[in-house]
């Protein structure tokens, strides 16, 4: 009794961030504490505002693509495709079937790497360094796939309006299957480390919870909404790509707390892996190369021979350009890009060898020409790793977007962060923040 009287606490205001050990990304949380209990929290964002929307207005439709990589930089492919789909909707064009499959495969690969990072990082914030190392190891396998397809690891710029940059490289399917089995193995290990671990469950269960009604009124989407038991997923509700032709489940939780978010993410990884496998099996095949009776030579070899003066009979051969880094053959190009000449850049093969191709290319890339969607406005959404990732675009009929606005899934989640941490302990702020998987790029744009 006496002791209770003696220890009196005063409300104390402390500031977490903007540069804080457990904040991957920079935000500031000003919390008012009563002892260790958070009584009031004020979240401030904007430290990574890089004027994405303004930049889009300044350049042409093509020039905005690299900026979209840097929105959600853990799963950049999804933002890429979201942007591409938005412009395609403005133009009213359809991409080819093989392209849809490629986009789907790459989206799911990105989603998995995003979830791996997010789960790993939130485990690390609870002290489970091992899980983090395992998850990043698994992510590296997928990044190798991404690199094989587009040449970059993080900032991919893989989408083209009306298609994708390149076809999947040879042997991609085999490689992907190997990577998937590696990831499955890692998931099993991490599952064993975390899911039933009392230290982990004690810190996660019942922490950072939000009611379903609150989640809806704040506009939650993605894993956080699904952890509350609402099965909203853009891939199911308004299917794009070819999601309606493949089988997958939308995992949901029931308590809306950190633990359910963790479970939802872990199950989603498995569903994404399923999707990749199905898509790899179903992707429509296409001719790989024109066969000139074996007279095809790698472009690099041809140049080497030429430089050495060994030009005898060289003109009988045709240079083989790899579909990814050096250019793309027509036969493959037409499989995964639209045939609409006003929109899609022509295959490199035509650009280098024919005047029509060159002019076509020129018309599309020169300032003042470019692609010109008709006047109008559209909203197009994809399911990003954190939820609905929407692009609202206005075209004034010129070659530059008049306005591009991004509906970032993190934004409403962060707006409700104070609801999730108020009333909890100060030590629970960090895991709750980790469960949101805030990505500065899409939050602050």
């Amino acid at each position, binding site marked *: 009794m006496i002791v209770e009287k003696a220890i009196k606490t005063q409300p104390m205001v402390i500031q977490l961030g903007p540069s804080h050990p457990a904040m991957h990304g920079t935000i500031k949380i000003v919390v008012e504490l009563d002892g260790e209990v958070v009584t009031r929290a004020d979240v401030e964002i904007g430290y990574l505002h890089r004027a994405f*929307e303004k930049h889009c207005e300044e350049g042409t439709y093509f020039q905005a693509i690299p900026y979209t990589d840097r929105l959600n930089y853990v799963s950049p492919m999804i933002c890429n495709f979201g942007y591409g789909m938005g412009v395609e909707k*403005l133009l009213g064009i359809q991409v080819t079937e093989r392209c849809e499959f490629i986009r789907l495969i790459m989206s799911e690969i990105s989603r998995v790497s995003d979830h791996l990072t997010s789960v790993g990082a939130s485990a690390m914030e609870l002290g489970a360094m091992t899980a983090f190392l395992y998850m990043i190891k698994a992510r590296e396998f997928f990044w190798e796939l991404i690199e094989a397809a587009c040449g970059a690891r993080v900032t991919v710029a893989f989408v083209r309006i009306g298609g994708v940059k390149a076809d999947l490289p040879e042997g991609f399917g085999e490689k992907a299957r190997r990577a998937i089995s590696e990831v499955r193995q890692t998931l099993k290990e991490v599952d064993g480390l975390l899911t039933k671990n009392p230290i982990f469950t004690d810190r996660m269960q019942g922490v950072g919870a939000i009611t379903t009604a609150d989640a809806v009124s704040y506009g939650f989407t993605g894993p956080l909404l699904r952890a509350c038991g609402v099965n909203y997923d853009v891939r199911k509700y308004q299917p794009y790509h070819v999601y309606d032709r493949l089988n997958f489940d939308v995992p949901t939780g029931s308590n809306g707390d950190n633990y359910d978010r963790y479970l939802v993410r872990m199950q989603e990884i498995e569903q994404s892996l399923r999707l990749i496998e199905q898509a790899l099996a179903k992707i429509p095949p296409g001719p790989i190369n024109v066969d000139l009776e074996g007279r095809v030579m790698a472009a690099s070899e041809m140049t080497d021979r030429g430089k050495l003066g060994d030009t005898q009979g060289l003109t009988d051969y045709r240079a083989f350009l790899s579909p990814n880094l050096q250019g793309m053959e027509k036969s493959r190009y037409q499989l995964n890009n639209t045939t609409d000449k006003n929109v899609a850049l022509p295959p490199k093969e035509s650009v280098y060898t024919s005047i029509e191709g060159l002019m076509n290319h020129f018309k599309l890339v020169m300032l003042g020409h470019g692609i010109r969607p008709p006047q109008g406005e559209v909203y197009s959404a994809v399911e990003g790793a954190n939820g609905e990732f*929407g692009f609202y675009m206005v075209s004034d009929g010129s070659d530059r977007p008049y306005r591009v606005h991004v509906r970032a899934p993190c934004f*409403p989640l962060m707006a*409700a962060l104070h609801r999730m941490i108020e009333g909890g302990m100060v030590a629970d702020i960090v895991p709750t923040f980790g469960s949101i998987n805030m990505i500065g790029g899409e939050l602050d744009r």
Partner: protein
Amino acid sequence: MTAESITIRRLKEAFGSHIRETHAYRGDDTVVIDREALVNVATLLKQDADLEYSFLIDITAVDYLKTDKAPRFEVVYHFFSLPHKQRVRIKVPLAADDLEIDSLVPLWPGANWYEREVYDMFGVRFRGHPNLKRILLYEEFEGHPLRKDYPYNKRQPIVKPGGNI
């Protein structure tokens, strides 16, 4: 144009005189309304049993300075209805000299940050907003960068440490 969607029909019935224009370009239902009607329209969208737009997906704005459109600004709302798998876009034109509109925070707490962002980027003021201040930029920043008359690379001095940040 195909038949009007139920959303547009319902809104026309209820607010005929306040509806300036509707269209469904590329399949996106769009309704342009007077700003006086905004709160009532939003309430109807949220509560009507046939609509049930329980998600306020997004709020943004567009500055039409470089086109011949008048008035200059438009605030754009996107709603989503989970049970009906429907989306609708509500647009409210605003004149440059009277940039004020009712806040939707009483209906959707999630509107809070969206409205702050629109205020930060365009300078639109939301009546009844509990905490209308800059969100992405800092207090010392002058002007509203997403307006079309703000040059994209116009830099402002860096605030010294110890400033109000």
